[in-house]
């Protein structure tokens, strides 16, 4: 077990945007990546508790998560959720003590394996835009890996949103906003997609289950929204 990585789904793709976790796992299988999940015992990283000021509950949750992962012997954790990624990788040391495993975002993990995945994609022929998730970009400094992965898919013409990378606009599904004010959250996502996506773009690529859920909900019928692992799997040949 300790030789395999732990694929940490995160609550959103475990229970709401399941296609993201299904796609991630299928992609791993096709790539021959040895991985395990914690299934129904995965639990919560505590991010949403931190964002909503519920510090004691966040600490408790983080401690128990560190314990579940480390007692199962995992040394490597990979997640496709930037919220989980940021929380575990950069905030756990302060709230949960020592973290005896490494946590990476899936884009960082995949880019390391680019020799094995390059050339494995069929052509997609679509003009696409990438939306930087706040937790992944501004908070963790991961900007280029998802773009490099998207560019590996032949035929995808990647163009930038008006504001991108460290200046990207938040879709406002995070930080507890969507649960407190769902209408506001949708309206911000609509405004961002409407004002930021260049003409002719047919596909919005997210790298966050929360952004993915919010954009899909707010912009249904206007633009196709796919998360990074979904796109890579859809383009995978054979």
């Amino acid at each position, binding site marked *: 077990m300790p030789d395999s990585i732990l694929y940490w789904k995160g609550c959103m793709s475990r229970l709401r945007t399941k296609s993201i976790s299904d796609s991630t796992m299928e992609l791993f299988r096709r790539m021959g990546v040895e991985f395990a999940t914690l299934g*129904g*015992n995965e639990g919560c990283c505590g991010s949403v508790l*931190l*964002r*909503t*000021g519920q510090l004691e509950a966040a600490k408790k949750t983080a401690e128990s998560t560190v314990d579940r992962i480390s007692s199962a012997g995992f040394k490597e954790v990979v997640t496709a959720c930037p919220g989980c990624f940021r929380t575990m990788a950069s905030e756990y040391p302060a709230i949960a003590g020592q973290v005896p495993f490494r946590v990476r975002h899936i884009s960082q993990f995949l880019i390391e394996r680019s020799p094995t995945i390059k050339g494995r994609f069929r052509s997609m022929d679509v003009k696409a835009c990438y939306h930087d998730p706040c937790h992944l970009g501004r908070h963790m400094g991961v900007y280029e890996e998802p773009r490099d992965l998207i560019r590996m898919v032949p035929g995808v013409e990647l163009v930038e949103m008006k504001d991108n990378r460290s200046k990207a606009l938040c879709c406002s599904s995070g930080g507890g906003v969507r649960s*407190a004010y769902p209408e506001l959250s949708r309206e911000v996502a609509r405004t961002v997609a409407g004002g930021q996506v260049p003409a002719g773009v047919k596909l919005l690529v997210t790298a966050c289950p929360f952004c993915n859920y919010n954009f899909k909900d707010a912009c249904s019928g206007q633009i196709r929204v796919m998360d990074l692992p979904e796109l890579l799997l859809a383009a995978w040949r054979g």
Partner: protein
Amino acid sequence: MGSDDWLAFKREEFKRWMEDERRRTGLSRAVAAYTSAKANALSRLPELEEIRREVRKIKERSIQQMDELVKITMDSVREVKGEAYLARDAEEAREIVSDLTGHGKLVVKSKSLTGDEVGINEALEERGNKVYETDLGEFIIQLRKEKPTHIINPSVHVPREEVAKTFSELLGRPVSQEIPALVGIARDYLREKFCNADVGITGANVVSAKTGTIFIVENEGNARFVSNAPPKHICLTGIEKIVPTLSDAFMLLQVLPPYATGVFMSAYVSMITGPSKTADIEKTIVYGAHGPKELHLVLLDNGRRRMAEDDVFREALYCIRCGGCMYECPVYRVIGGSFGNNYFGGIGLIWSAFTTGDEKVAAAVDACTKCGRCKEVCPLEIDTPRMVERLKQRLVKRGFVQPKHYEIMESILHNGNPFGEDERAGRSRG
């Protein structure tokens, strides 16, 4: 947890903003104009990168010695024959300014966030004074009996068509919807007020302690009239605005205009060191030549010292009030002036909480995504998301918890997920 009143009124306010096409139009025009002007200015001012870092250090030093700088400033102002006061809270500030103003007076005002913070207009009007806002944006919203929605452009939500409507009501005749014509109306209307006013009230953008100099930065020229034409000038400003020296103040002045409005320098910077004076007749000093005979500087604490004492919230005092972060905030772009209380946007949540109380702003805090874009665009790189998270923790302790957030917390502790779902399947191999 008690009543949810703190929440209900904000929900309503957000909804009104989201559904108000008029306000959304005004705001989006302003955002577009601001972002392109600022991008242009910053691209032509590469030297600003170094200057803004220096200003951050100046603010850090100044806040560190804030109490000392207050003393130095008050001594300096008195030395040049001005008067200086320290108001501990909003009530004290209202009393000082009201006593200095008196009853039944004509008062002209230039835009002052600190004035709004303490509710100065209401206090003066209660004593039978007639108060005119002279900044065009403030004048518009004063006539419309609305609240400001941006710290630099208070009437940013009011498009030209609505301004025309307001002005035609003021003059009792139809007026043009052309923007230059509307500006002309305000100019003509206010000119006579400036000359006849008994008291002029301004804020300040920076104060230099050593010289006791008040800096007022503006583009319209109204603050010059306000601080110069009436016989009495009262300047009300926060104690965090003080920097040690003139050189420090000049550093800050270079950063403010490009970030506030996308210009290299604002049209006018007034530097005021004491009241107007002359010694032209027999070298005898007489105060009140062409400018005011009296200058009163009212320095306001009202929560600022409490901010300074906290390692996290202290950073909010570094804010130079350029207002750029608001235009750059995806949430502010949708709910504008309802995102905050007397100050707006992410940093406005902190300022509102400390100056007017947690309860006024508790619900708006949950509209902040903590996305960090404000920090990215801030010339002083103020870590607002960190402060908002910290403020939220304080609010939770005081019982300001969104019912939905409480539910999520319970579900996470019991089910391991925020959705209230029971996941019983065991651990599975992929």
